């Protein structure tokens, strides 16, 4: 594989950039693989990469119905953070933060990781207490957390509304300085390029039609490009989890919902952190191009439509304008929607299933993008070793049976709880 560097850039500039290698190949599916990963999104590509890199399993195929990186990894708000209180979430996410920090070097691909800090705003004394508790929990787990008072927040984000006569005055906030954003597409492409170079087959435009299961063991899949045998199969299909689960006669604690996001027209730099509204569900950051990137609640009903309705967008942006009134002057450039695998407790599932050789990775709700490296790493471990790693032990499928829910925010599919 051609290494990307300033020298290769100069060299290729001399030939008008016409001689770059393809970043990944377009192979014909083989008859059989050791591992098949279904879903060529961020998590699937990362899983294949870590299978090859950490476990030396390279006879792997990624089966993607559309094109790689065309789902939620290509349409999220790019926020990366580990500001969780529960140990399971905190340790998993912080493990991911360490992978994010060295990802560009690791993948030889600039993912533009930008640790610009995230601030969760607090709008009451009670909320400050809750944030202090969460911040302390984070620090106990080795994650950086700073409790900011009103004046400190004002210094960092002066454009927020600090008037006192408002419905949700800003009391302060909890900041994780090491959180940030990254270039989402580059994450998918970087993982794809490295996985491909280590021998993984990336098979696009290939839809899974059915599964071959016999005597409780997975044998392979039937696809639109023929049958493929595999000893182990990993599902990494986010919003399509329910559709594939039905083909396996499985019913999961997952509902598929619609989540919208939007960007404004580009403006000069005004916001150099990620900021979330504490009295609702709204988050905002500014892209390198200057667009304000915003998102919030689910539309609230089961959907596979990948396009949203205006009432939710209006609700979300009302929160945004309450927090930062200058947003009302901006023109909206683009809005879009994606379909989310919403789990019932708001936390993901990375686990084995009752079918031998079938592994499940789903339930990422609002937070799939930041989890990409840690999800891929732990899922690769779970598949390669046929047992969960301690980092994803809390993300078991069985927790809904036993009552060990991971209800960090307790949101899940029910937006009205917030």
């Amino acid at each position, binding site marked *: 594989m051609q290494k990307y560097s300033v020298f290769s850039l100069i060299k290729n500039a001399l030939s008008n950039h016409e001689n770059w290698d393809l970043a990944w190949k377009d192979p014909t599916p083989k008859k059989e693989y050791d591992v098949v990963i279904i879903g060529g999104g961020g998590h699937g590509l990362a899983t294949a990469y870590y299978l090859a890199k950490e476990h030396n399993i390279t006879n792997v195929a990624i089966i993607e119905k559309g094109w790689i990186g065309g789902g939620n990894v290509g349409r999220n708000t790019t926020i990366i953070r580990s500001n969780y209180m529960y140990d399971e979430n905190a340790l998993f996410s912080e493990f991911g933060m360490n992978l994010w920090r060295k990802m560009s070097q690791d993948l030889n691909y600039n993912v533009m990781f930008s640790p610009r800090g995230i601030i969760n705003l607090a709008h009451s004394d009670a909320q400050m207490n809750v944030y202090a508790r969460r911040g302390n929990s984070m620090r106990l787990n080795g994650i950086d957390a700073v409790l900011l008072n009103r004046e400190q927040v004002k210094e960092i984000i002066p454009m927020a509304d600090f008037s006192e006569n408002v419905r949700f005055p800003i009391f302060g906030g909890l900041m994780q300085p090491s959180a940030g954003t990254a270039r989402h597409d580059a994450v998918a492409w970087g993982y794809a390029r490295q996985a491909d170079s280590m021998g993984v087959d990336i098979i696009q435009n290939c839809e899974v039609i059915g599964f071959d299961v016999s005597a409780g063991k997975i044998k392979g899949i039937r696809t639109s490009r023929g049958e493929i045998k595999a000893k182990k199969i990993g599902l990494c299909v986010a919003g399509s989890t329910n559709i594939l689960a039905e083909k396996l006669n499985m019913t999961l604690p997952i509902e*598929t919902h619609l989540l919208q996001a939007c960007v404004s027209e580009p403006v000069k730099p005004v916001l150099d952190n990620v900021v979330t509204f504490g009295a609702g569900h709204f988050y905002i950051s500014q892209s390198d191009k200057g667009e304000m990137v915003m998102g919030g609640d689910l539309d609230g009903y089961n959907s596979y439509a990948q396009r949203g309705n205006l009432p939710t967008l209006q609700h979300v942006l009302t929160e945004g304008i309450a927090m930062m009134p200058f947003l009302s002057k901006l023109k909206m450039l683009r809005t879009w929607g994606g379909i989310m695998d919403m789990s019932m407790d708001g936390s993901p599932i990375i686990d084995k299933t009752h079918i031998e050789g079938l592994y499940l990775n789903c339930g990422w709700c609002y937070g799939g993008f930041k989890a990409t490296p840690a999800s891929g790493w732990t899922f690769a471990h779970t598949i390669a070793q046929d047992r969960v790693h301690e980092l994803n032990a809390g993300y078991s499928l069985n927790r809904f049976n036993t009552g060990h829910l991971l209800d960090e925010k307790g949101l899940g599919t029910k937006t009205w709880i917030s």
Partner: protein
Amino acid sequence: MLHIKCPHCGMRSQNEFSYGGDASVKRPELGKDISDQDWNNFVYNRKSLRGKHWELWQHLAGCRQWIKVERDTGSHEIFKTLKAEEEIS
């Protein structure tokens, strides 16, 4: 925006409604022995497929009644609405 025909009030916009999830889910009968799996299916497990989907909505900013709505989860088209006590045919 969705337009939902409330069987009590007529056609209203989505803003007046709150979503209540899959209407085909049945609560296990009281006073009978129920396995953990039955409860798990009732509380957490959902099919959530693409296509026609019977679901509960509450006309929260209207008559406050729960209703059943048959809607396509792929296209958002609404086919039929029923009162809560009416059986899905």
